[in-house]
Each structure stands twice: as C-alpha cells, then as structure tokens.
C-alpha cells in the first residue's frame, strides 16, 4: 500500500433509498487505498451492489459525499480509469470474446491499436486466446466470467470493482484470478471485490468492510477485526484442577484424559507461564496452536443480532436508522481497527 497517495475511494455518508422507501444504504463511509485489495462483504440485500453501482454511475445515490480516484462520485470522465465487472454481466451473445473486450476498450475511448494489443494481452492473461474468436453464446459461465474480467481490465484501470468475479469459475481459474488481482495490487492499483466466497477474500484482501442492512458494520484489516478473538489453544492431559489455577483461561475436557485450555491472547510470551505451569505439573502437552476467528466467523458474527442470536433476514428493509445503528454500536469491533 502507498498511504501517501490520495485514496482511490473515499466515500462518506452514502445513502440510497429506492422507491417504496426501501433503504438500501444508510450512510456508508468507505475508504480504499491505492495498492490495496478491499473486500466488500455482506448478506444478500445488504447494499453491496448498490454501493458499487453508485460508484459506477449505474444507480443514482440519494446523498453522497466523497470521491473516486480524486473526482466526485458520478464524474463521467473518471470512469475511463475505472474497471467494472458487474454480477451476472451480459455481453451480447453475437460478439466474440475478442470483440467484447475490444468493445469495452472502445467505450473507454481507447485508440484501436492500443485496445487490440491490450486485448491480446488480456486474452492470454485469462487463458482465453484460443477461444477469443468464438461467439460468447458458445461459452460456459466460467469462460464468460474470464472474458468479463478481461473486459473490465482492458483500459488498464487504476481502480477495478469486481462483483462476484469468481462466480462460475473453476478452482484453477479462481487461483488465476486471485493472481491477477494480486499483480494489480503490486502495481499500485486498487481492487474492490464484492464476493460471498469468504475464504477467497481472506486469502487476498488487505482490508474488508462488512455491510449489514445498508451500513458498514465493520471495516478494517482481517487481523484487526479478529483481534479480540485471538487466542492460543493448548491441548494437553491437564486435569480440571490444574486448569482452574490458570488465570483468564477457559478449560474444556475433551475426554479420554485430554483437555483444551484456551488462553485469550495473541502474544506468545503471555502463554509461556501457562506452559511452565503445565510442565511443572508434569502434564503432557500435545499441541499449542495460535487461533483466531476466520473471516466467515467474523461475517456470521456481524450478521447475527447479538440480542437474539438469530441471523438477520436477507434484503434491505424499511426499518428506521436507529434500529440498525443500535445493532452496529453494540459491537466493539465495528470501528476500523487498522488500515495500514
């Protein structure tokens, strides 16, 4: 990341209320740095696609403050420096893969020679060179997704917004797409990925934001957001009696003379006295593992109402802002705990 450069995305107080009073976004603030892969998560209907569409001028915001690549949201010329892969994108079936990519380039005002060269490069990058001359109607979902990704990158964008980029793509293709995104990050470009495949996001995202009912419930690095859940898990032959003497630790019997001691810390030095205590008691230590919440755990925690323990129903709703804010404020990890 290059924090000295201006933010690629700097949004404040983005709201969108659709006809019928459906609040899709209720004051979203979001920052994406140059050279960063940013994951946008949220349950169905949380407002992720609406937020991306507002940045791409597909949807008109109710209110918005902020900039994309240093220009106000909605600035048309700036779109030439953006790449966008919509969810369920649909190029005309009569175009070939090559023509679809070139069409995207032309719509970004790229000169013919440049877009042809770039198309060749991108077909190679997404491993579709051999299929480039065939019509999109003959492609599988995954192949169309590869062409869509190539089309979104044809203008060599400074910022690319991808809505479910690996949808329908096989595992090899997914890995290739991840490599493309990390290459872009290495080149100082920004990537905003909207996906439900949390394990993938966890692998590549520098930071994430979790959108719930139109508000950012959490935003930060995965490490910072899961900090409070970090612990060390010690599996040993310790008895409950020994376990009860260890301060701030949870003891759990695993049966057959084995037990689990969970020490809530991410500091390896902090568990040394615990290990010393077990050694002193002549307890056999089987394993010592640092543990933290996965992105999926974090996500589930974010979409679960803490008062009821029930996951929120999908979709935006008409409930008042105060209901949502109460839910958001109740969680200590909801602030951006680290963005560098």
């Amino acid at each position: 990341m290059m924090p000295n450069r201006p933010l690629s995305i700097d949004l404040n107080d983005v709201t969108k209320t659709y006809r019928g009073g459906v609040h899709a976004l209720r004051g979203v603030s979001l920052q994406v740095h140059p050279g960063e892969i940013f994951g946008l998560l949220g349950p169905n209907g949380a407002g992720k696609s609406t937020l991306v569409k507002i940045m791409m001028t597909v949807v008109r915001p109710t209110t918005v403050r902020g900039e994309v690549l240093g220009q106000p949201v909605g600035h048309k010329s700036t779109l030439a420096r953006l790449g966008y892969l919509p969810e369920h994108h649909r190029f005309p079936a009569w175009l070939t893969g090559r023509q679809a990519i070139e069409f995207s380039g032309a719509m970004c005002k790229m000169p013919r020679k440049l877009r042809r060269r770039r198309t060749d490069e991108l077909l190679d990058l997404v491993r579709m060179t051999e299929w480039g001359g065939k019509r999109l109607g003959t492609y599988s979902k995954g192949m169309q997704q590869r062409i869509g990704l190539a089309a979104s990158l044809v203008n060599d964008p400074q910022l690319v917004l991808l809505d479910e980029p690996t949808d329908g793509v096989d595992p090899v293709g997914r890995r290739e797409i991840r490599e493309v995104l990390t290459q872009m990050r290495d080149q100082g470009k920004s990537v905003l990925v909207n996906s439900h495949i949390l394990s993938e996001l966890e692998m590549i995202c520098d930071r994430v934001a979790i959108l719930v009912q139109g508000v950012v419930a959490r935003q930060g690095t995965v490490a910072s957001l899961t900090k409070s859940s970090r612990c060390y898990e010690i599996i040993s032959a310790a008895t409950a009696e020994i376990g009860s003497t260890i301060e701030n630790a949870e003891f759990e019997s695993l049966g057959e003379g084995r037990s689990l001691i969970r020490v809530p810390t991410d500091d390896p030095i902090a568990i040394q006295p615990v290990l010393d205590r077990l050694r002193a008691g002549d307890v056999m230590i089987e394993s010592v593992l640092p543990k933290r919440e996965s992105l999926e755990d974090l996500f589930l925690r974010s979409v679960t109402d803490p008062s009821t323990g029930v996951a929120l129903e999908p979709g935006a709703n008409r409930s008042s802002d105060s209901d949502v804010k109460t839910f958001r404020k109740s969680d200590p990890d909801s602030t951006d705990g680290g963005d560098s």
Partner: protein
Amino acid sequence: MIQTLALLHAAYRELNARKLFWVTLALSGLIVAAMASVGLNEEGLTVLWWQFDLAFLNTNIMPVDVFYKFIFANLAVPYWLAWLATILALISTASIFPDMVSGGSIDILLSKPIGRTRLFLTRYLTGLLFVMLQVGVFTIAAFLLIGFRGGSWEPWILISIPLVLLFYSYLFSICALLGTITRSTIASFLITILFWLLIFGVNSGEQVTLAGRTALEISLQYSQEDLKEAVDAGDPIEVTGPLQEMCDEDQESLDTWESFHVWFFTAKTILPKTDETVDLLERVLRDRTGMEIGGPPERQEMMFGANQRISNREFRDRLQETMDDRSVFWIIGTSLLFEFAVLGLVCWYFSRRDF
C-alpha cells in the same frame, strides 16, 4: 467518436447476427426481382416470357419508365417498405432497448465514460440503421431496375430512403419509449403496433371526413349556383324554394362534417403522419419527374349530399389539391416534433432511472 463508432459497429454485428435481417433483405431482393420480371410493351403486359395483351395497360397508355415508377411509388414502397418490411423491422429492432436495459448489460454500458442521453440516442440511431440498410438496398436496386428496364435514370427515386426512414423513426421512437419503460420486447412491439393502428384510424377518419367535407363543398357550390341562376332568372318561389332548401341541407351537412374533420385534423396534426410521409414520394416524383398516373374514366357520380352531379375527376382533383396544399413542414415537421417529444421523454426517463 470512438464510442459512437464502437456502438455502430456493434449494431452492425447485431444485424449480421439476426436472421430476420437477412430474411427481410432476401424478400426485398425477391420483390425487386418480381418487378424486374414484369414488363410493358405496345400490346400489354409481359411477365417473364409470357405476354398478356391488355388494352388499358400498354406503352401507348403509359410509358414504360412511368410504369416502373408507378409500381415502385404506389405498390413497392407503401405495401412492402411501409407495411410488411416495417413490421419485420419492428420485430427485429423491438428488442434493442429491452436488451440494452436488461440487468448485466446496462451495467456495462453505463459504467463507461459516456453520457446516458448520448448512449440512448446513439442506440436509437443504430436501430434506424436496420431500416436504412434495408430501404437503401431496396431503393438502389429499384433505381437500377428503372434505369435499365425503364430507360430512365431517376435520382429522385432515392428520396424514398429518407422518407421511409422518417416514417419508421416515428414508430421506432414509440417502440424505444415502451422498450425502455417496460423492458419487454413483446410489450413494446405489440403496443407500437397498436399505436400504429391508432394513427391509421385517425388518418382514415381524417380522410373520410375530408372526403365528405370536400364532396359537400362541391355540392353546396353547385346548389348555390343553381339557386343564383334561378333567382337571376326570376323563377317563382316554387322553383327557388326547393333549391334554397337543398342549399340549407348541404350547409347543415357540411357544418357537421367540418366539425368532425376539425377534430380528426387536430388529432392528426399532433400525431406523426405516417401515410402522408410515405405519400410524399409520389408527390416528389410527380413534381420532379412529371410522373402522372391516369385515373379511371369519368363515369361515376358521387353520392355525397343532395347534389349528385359531382364528377369523380372533379372530386379527386379537389381532394388532391387539398392534400398537396399540406406543406412538407406540416407533414414532416409536426411528425418530427412528436418524435422529438417522445425521444425527449424517454431520454429524461433513461437519464434518471436506476438500473
């Protein structure tokens, strides 16, 4: 410019991919071939190698170049280009806007650095490309046919390209509006056809009421002349009375027909004038090339009003005069105003809508 060319290029590819485009083009070719297979000589009509001797249709009645121009202007253009081919064109192009605003497709287009109004209007023009190519190919083929077979190289024939394009653009603007709002190809096509039928109905109503009005004007004129002659001759009341009564009846009927005609004419002024736009071709060919098609012999009497002495020729000439008095601005200008209003409405809607 790069964006406009890209959209035009994509539209051309789209046309190439549509079978109906080629079917329509093939049908156009068949019609030109059918026109070419028909000939005229001193004895009558020829169809390929067959001769049909006709006393009322031969080169003594009508020169061969006028024969072909007549077929082109009175049969090929109004029945093929402005009717059947138009329906095929509407079927082919009705999906342009529903496809454009469908999810996944519109996102790609709107995320590019192009204004929504420009995007919409460029797509609209690409839709007209279908008709332009069809009419262009057909008209140029007809131009060559009239040149080679009729011996008359008449460039004014080519005016049918912009005229038919204009005619189609009136309907296509409605189709674009409906396609953008409903996002349904079938709905936009069917409602456009209904709108076309509405125009046809208003036009027919206007023509019928105009015909009635014209006939009654002539009838009243004759009645008044008869009355004036009788009064001048000092005829008694027994003679002038019925004449005065006839004048009054004609005047009363004329007032009724006039009021109906005014309503239809006002509605027609607001709506696009599809028939009259296409009919301009015949007017242009008549004015510019001297093409005059003879009418049937004068043997019928009109039945409008009480006076039955109106000749068919007089009635037709008067009607033709009224039609010819209608300015090109009234025909095309007001139709374009309607089209621009529709396009303005759909541009406004398209620019403000979320997708």
